[in-house]
């Protein structure tokens, strides 16, 4: 018996030794990218899409970043902020990465940003959308750059759009964490500014898959339902809502209907409308090529998670072009990437002075149709309206906007809640 367990120990020791060997040997112009994404757990699909997007870009340019190569080091954070923090420390201290990239949840973004400041390492967030990282707290995190979006960025125009549809009273149901509050907050602010009323806010905990206790409490006299779901919640909510006999129009934040989950959904989501900076059904030649190639390679339509890491690769390569393939140093890199303007798959992207993208926002409707020459009818997020070059401050102006507190469970206050 003792022999057996000592054998496991020996095997473990050998594994560690082999791993150590594999870590040595660095080349001069190798840009080490520490990538943090959930590879296991309920958010694994989003994590995989992120990894695929980056990988596809690196393969496409044959890992030639203007003379430099990149080394991709993946760590699994299981979508838990404390695990993410430890993985970031590992990537920075042990692998000596030039930048960390990733994090899915807004809470992970809030947890990783201080690590980047503490360790003076670039942190690029292609997904984590926590508002304050590029708003009220931007000064605290000088090495933080966002290539994705802020949570409230798409829902600002969406609120106005909802008014245009003639909706007056809306019930909001959203995941109970920062991303949920900020998405709903942005929507509520602009929707109520043009005369709409949010009459109820419901916050199911992150990761809820049984909405039985929540759906019956929704006010019956609303004109529409606003939903913001993430991960496995996205799949379950529309199903259960339809089973409960809902006839009201359903609108929502981008992650409720994003392509990471859309192929697994059924007819219950047809006609639902959401908003985001990307749709796989975006009808541009660039996107058609991107979707076809991605699908060929990974057997699945790309989601915004794939597009955003792909575009991040594009932006980093632009920086390396300017430096001639030399790593410019942390501060200089942040400065250079902030000035980059690219024509990405999602459309034109540039960063504002708080290092957050300015890009198009698309209003999308789920339809079953054929696209890009595929012969099967499938669900696609058809773009029905485009708001060009939307900044995180929408039409409010930066100083005016930053005077208000960050959107939270209680802000903006629910004046019309009954």
């Amino acid at each position, binding site marked *: *018996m*003792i022999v*057996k*367990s000592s054998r*496991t120990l020996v095997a*473990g020791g050998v*594994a*560690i030794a*082999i*791993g*150590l060997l*594999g870590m040595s040997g660095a080349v001069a112009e190798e840009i080490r990218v520490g990538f943090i994404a959930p590879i296991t757990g309920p958010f694994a699909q989003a994590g995989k899409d992120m990894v695929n997007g980056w990988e596809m870009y690196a393969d496409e340019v044959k890992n030639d970043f203007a003379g430099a190569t990149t080394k991709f080091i993946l*760590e*699994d954070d299981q979508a*838990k*902020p*404390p*695990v993410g*923090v*430890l*993985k970031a*420390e*590992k990537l920075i*201290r*042990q692998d000596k990465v030039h930048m960390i990239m990733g994090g899915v*949840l*807004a*809470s992970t973004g*809030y*947890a990783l940003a*201080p*690590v980047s400041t*503490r360790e003076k390492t670039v942190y690029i967030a292609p997904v984590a959308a*926590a508002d304050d990282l590029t708003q009220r707290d931007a000064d605290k995190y000088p090495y933080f750059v966002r290539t994705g979006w802020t949570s409230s960025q798409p829902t600002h125009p969406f609120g106005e759009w909802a008014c245009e549809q003639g909706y007056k009273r809306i019930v909001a149901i959203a995941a*109970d*964490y*920062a991303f949920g509050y900020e998405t709903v907050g942005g929507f509520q602010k602009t929707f109520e500014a043009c005369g709409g009323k949010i009459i109820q806010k419901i916050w199911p*905990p*992150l990761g809820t898959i049984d909405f039985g206790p929540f759906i019956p409490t929704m006010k019956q006299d609303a004109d529409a339902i606003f939903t913001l779901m993430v991960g496995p919640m996205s799949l379950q909510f529309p199903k259960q809502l339809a089973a409960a006999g809902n006839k009201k129009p359903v609108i929502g934040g981008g992650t409720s209907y994003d392509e990471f989950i859309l192929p697994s959904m059924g007819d219950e989501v047809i006609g639902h409308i959401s908003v985001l900076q990307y749709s796989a059904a975006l009808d541009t030649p660039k996107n058609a090529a991107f979707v076809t190639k991605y699908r060929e390679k990974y057997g699945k339509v790309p989601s915004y998670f794939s597009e955003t890491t792909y575009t991040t690769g594009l932006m980093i390569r632009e920086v390396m072009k300017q430096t001639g393939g030399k790593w410019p140093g942390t501060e200089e890199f942040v400065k250079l990437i902030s000035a980059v303007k690219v024509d990405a798959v999602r459309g034109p992207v540039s960063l504002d002075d708080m290092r957050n993208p300015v890009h198009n926002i698309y209003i999308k409707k789920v339809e079953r149709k054929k696209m890009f020459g595929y012969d099967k009818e499938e669900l696609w997020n058809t773009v029905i309206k485009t708001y060009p070059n939307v900044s995180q401050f929408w039409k409010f102006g930066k100083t005016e906007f930053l005077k208000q507190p960050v959107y*939270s*469970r*209680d802000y903006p206050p629910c004046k019309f809640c009954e």
Partner: protein
Amino acid sequence: MTGRNKVWVVVGLLLALGIVAPFTNSFVILLITRALILAILAMSLDILLGFAGLPSLGQAAYLGVGAYLTAILATKYNFGLGWSFWLVIVLGILLGAATAAFFGLFAIRASGVYFLMITLAFGQCVWGLAYRWNSMTGGDNGINLPGRPAFGIQLANDVTYFYVVFGFFVVSLLMLYVLVQSPFGRSLEGIREREVRMRILGYNTWLHKYIAFVIAGGFGGLAGVLWAHANGHVSPEDVVLTTSVDALLMVVLGGPGTLVGGVIGAGFVVFLREYLSTLVPWWQYVLGGVYVLTILYLPGGLMGILERIRQSGAPFDKPEAAKKPAT
């Protein structure tokens, strides 16, 4: 009585750790620091599980209150970032103990699986507070600490912080060792073996268990304060059930009723999970395999290996081994 040799071995290993740790790489020292903090938590649980026979599934609650206390004081009141760090340590211990004193009123009445369920429920209550009490705890975002305390010495330096944690660890080990060697500790073991007999002998077994529960809570609170500063971030994810289960597994893996077993378990789990996971993607199988093998073949945990070697006729310490009652 445990052998004097055993004590010397532990002292020797601790000295070696204290000397070697600063020369490891800057990531490994973080892991050692974390392992030591979790070792304090595991030892506190061992008092309950290994000595009093109370399998608690809520030990993360005390780690949680300690950690959140530290984070809230630091961010909201700017307190505990200088000399007042020591005050926060005391407050953390007191709050951990007070929380345990409250929970204990309800939990100690139960035993076995019912005790497990009640402590689990209390643990989840603390998690629920951390997750839902947004204005205080920051909800799901957790709290970012402004940095480690500085009072003449800079705890921001990882080696310095390691020594502080190391110091607390050694003191905790010493105090708990004295505790379990004391008549009080002996009576806990008696309660574990046969509570009815102890009651008939005139012991107030409820009070004994209650006091042990409160003491374990205090050490849990201490671990929490250190944990908050080690990570620079406190999240509901730290208080979640998994942390309690981890602590339990550490004790079971190392060997319940040995104190040192919890320490070995903590080191084992932290390094298997946080270090092996950076090397191979199938680390979870290794961890699972180790758990299963330990439970199947080493009911006494990893510490049981030593015992077996001794019993199989190793030359040293033979008379001691013969005298020693089975644990």
